[in-house]
């Protein structure tokens, strides 16, 4: 094999040369130690009083069990390990049923809901999940069994995160819809109370439900009353669609955006759906722009790197910041499918902006390479650019709308002025969850 200094598959590309339909070719993947993003265990724990049971191979079990252990929830998770023989001896379903029954009998209490996770190999082997859920439900009529999926091999068909964000509502039962009840669905954290989104809902007399508010299973069940389900995270769309199909309410998807026109369109959709007047957002816009101006005055021309785990639309945030005079030089992301306009704008107006792959094997050495001082937005950007000046949020941090932009701008200012303990913060799994570390 010929040896050259040119990487076979470079870890970055100029946006001017990037194809939005496939920024990087797929290949081997590296896993950077930035652990803030949630996994399906964290998400399942949002269901109050739920017990999680995983049936999968030891290698897959390990990560989920220790996720629960680190968040002090080991007593809410049990498991059934699967061996090679189990896959071929004709006992695929009965082994799971027997294992779940044994666990329930040993628990010492009856959880109102059991989230039962199967894995890639079960689906590959054609497991009959309906039979499993059916038999368990017949044996334990006081328990809601919800089918859940740890199926990363199928991630290009339905992502496990998106599916889990939907399945956490699987134990809801039909209730009469209440037109004055609204739910935000598909998120792993509550939406900022200062957001225009929450204000519009509350100030117009609606009751707002969110699984992140629910402390008891009874409270959780009330979510089924929502006549309107709102999703704004890409992985929340399936949850909204399925709730609409099951209970008949409406689902509106008003995606998180950093584009002022899109934000306003989202609020119009919301107000039309709720049947309320559209507020005047001029003051909110001004406040957002003022915060950006204040941030720019302090951050100056410090180069900025944004990653896709911090915000769901990193290219839109990059465009907004560039329009406000910031020097955004790097985006860590491997797709931009939901934000083509921002991508194209950056191609034309910031052609030198570099897009870095979050997982390319050549990213391994990147933190050790010399970097200029960077303000990072997101944990992966902080790790790769070895910056202690970083905004420590995931999935928009619960922020939304004009107030969300204002708060992210304020966080940028704070990040620039106050260095963080990068190593300690990045090692914590599931940002916002308890941790024993």
């Amino acid at each position: 094999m010929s040896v050259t200094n040119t990487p076979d598959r470079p870890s970055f590309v100029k946006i001017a040369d990037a194809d939005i339909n496939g920024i990087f070719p797929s290949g081997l993947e590296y896993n950077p130690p930035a652990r803030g993003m949630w996994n399906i265990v964290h998400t399942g724990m949002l269901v109050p009083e739920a017990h999680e049971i995983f049936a999968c191979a030891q290698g897959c079990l390990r990560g989920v069990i220790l996720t629960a252990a680190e968040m002090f929830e080991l007593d809410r998770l049990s498991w059934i390990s699967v061996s090679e023989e189990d896959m071929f001896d004709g006992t695929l379903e009965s082994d799971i049923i027997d294992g779940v029954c044994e666990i329930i009998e040993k628990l010492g209490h009856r959880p109102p809901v059991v989230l039962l996770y199967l894995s890639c190999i079960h689906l590959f082997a054609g497991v009959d999940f309906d039979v499993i859920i059916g038999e368990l439900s017949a044996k334990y009529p006081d328990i809601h069994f919800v089918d859940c999926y740890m199926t990363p091999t199928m991630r290009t068909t339905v992502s496990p995160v998106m599916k889990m964000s939907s399945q956490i509502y699987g134990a809801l039962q039909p209730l009469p819809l209440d037109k004055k009840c609204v739910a935000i669905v598909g998120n792993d954290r509550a939406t900022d109370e200062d957001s225009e989104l929450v204000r519009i809902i509350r100030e117009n007399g609606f009751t707002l439900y969110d699984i992140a508010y629910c402390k008891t299973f009874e409270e959780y069940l009330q979510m089924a009353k929502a006549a309107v389900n709102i999703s704004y995270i890409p992985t929340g769309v399936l949850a909204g669609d399925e709730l609409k199909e099951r209970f008949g309410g409406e689902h509106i998807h008003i995606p998180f955006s950093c584009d002022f026109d899109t934000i306003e369109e989202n609020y119009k959709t919301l107000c039309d759906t709720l049947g309320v007047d559209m507020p005047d957002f001029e003051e909110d816009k001004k406040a957002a722009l003022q915060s950006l101006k204040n941030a720019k005055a302090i951050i100056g021309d410090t180069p900025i790197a944004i990653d896709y785990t911090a915000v769901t639309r990193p290219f839109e945030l990059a465009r907004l910041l560039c329009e406000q005079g910031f020097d955004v030089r790097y985006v860590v992301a491997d797709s931009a499918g939901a934000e083509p306009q921002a991508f194209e704008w950056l191609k034309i107006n910031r052609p030198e902006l570099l897009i870095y792959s979050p997982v390319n094997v050549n990213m391994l050495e990147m933190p050790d390479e010399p970097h200029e001082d960077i303000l990072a937005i997101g944990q992966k950007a902080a790790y790769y650019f070895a910056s202690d000046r970083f905004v420590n949020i995931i999935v928009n941090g619960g922020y939304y709308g004009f107030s969300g932009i204002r708060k992210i701008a304020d966080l940028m200012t704070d990040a620039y002025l106050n260095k963080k303990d990068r190593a300690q913060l990045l090692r914590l799994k599931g940002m916002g969850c308890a941790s024993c570390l």
Partner: protein
Amino acid sequence: MKNVSKIIPCYAADSSGVCSALYELGGMTVVHDASGCNSTYSTHDEPRWTKMKSNIFISALTELDAIMGNDDKFIADVVSAAHDKQPAFIALCGSPMPMMTGFDYDAVALEIEAQSGIKTIPLHTNGTRSYIEGASEALLEVVKAYAQPCEKRDNAVNVLGLTPLDFPLGTDTAIKKWLADNGFECVCTLAMGDSLDNIKAMPSAKVSLVVSYSGFAAAQYLKDTYGIPIVCGVPLGCEYPCDLAGALFWAMEHNEDYFYSAVHQSGGDTVIIGESVFASSLACALESDRRGRATVISTLPTDERILAQGDVCLSAEEDIEKYLQDYKPACVIADPLYKYIVPKETAFLNLPHFAFSGRCYERHFTNVIDRRLQEILR
């Protein structure tokens, strides 16, 4: 059921054992997996991930590639990464999905080696077994691949089975010091603080010290191929390290194996739960330091010669729980996450084991080599 656990974790899996064993040797390890193995390994099974770079990657297998048997993509991706990384060798291992599709590691390794010109080692993990099995195969194959006949050196010792899954970082330094203090020369501490050059020189040793069962298969290979006898044991406590050093000299002199972890008398009012070589060595140390006798529950694959008569091999939660209920020990020494299944009236001494509780008790890890038991057991 033996494969059900209400609360206690499982041990690190075979693929993590491979990655851990090969971490410092300058190769490139590829786990054929969709996702998950990489984050699990690098988060929970690998304390060096943020401290020391190593070329350990996953293949990012997709549903379509699995169903279509698209091994060409895997081969091309590995060859591409090898072009960029120029590793000393390539190791391939896998997860449950390749097991389902019947992925042929041996054939694919040959193809990758032909295309890349880099030695490629197939390792046959499937994510359903323990780290011991993965690390064991990895250490065996790397020794097979790199150990070269060479002249014997006086009092030279190989240490085998040393990975952070069983021992805190820095144990390699501590064990080298202990060996030096007792008049030995350390050839190799496979595979912590080590290199391929040291592996090449392993046949120069006169004895192999196996400190976890992960190192046993490689030690057996060195015995079968180069006539190097095996001693099993970990130098713990005050008296036992001196006895173990004596066992090393005895094995060298007589050219015979000495399973010195098995010399304790099983029984007494203490139960030790864990990896066989370590746990049984600890039982020996308790006895040598006149702290009573102990029975070992070996929770991972092992060889019965490593354990004393009366020690037991149990891995299922229900079996361990029942054994403890019946045994009624006054004290249990184990990883803290075993506490959930220990009878409430039983005293419990924490001995965190990274391969079991991962990072949960990381801050409590401390060097155990050649140290007094009261400093190790809290």
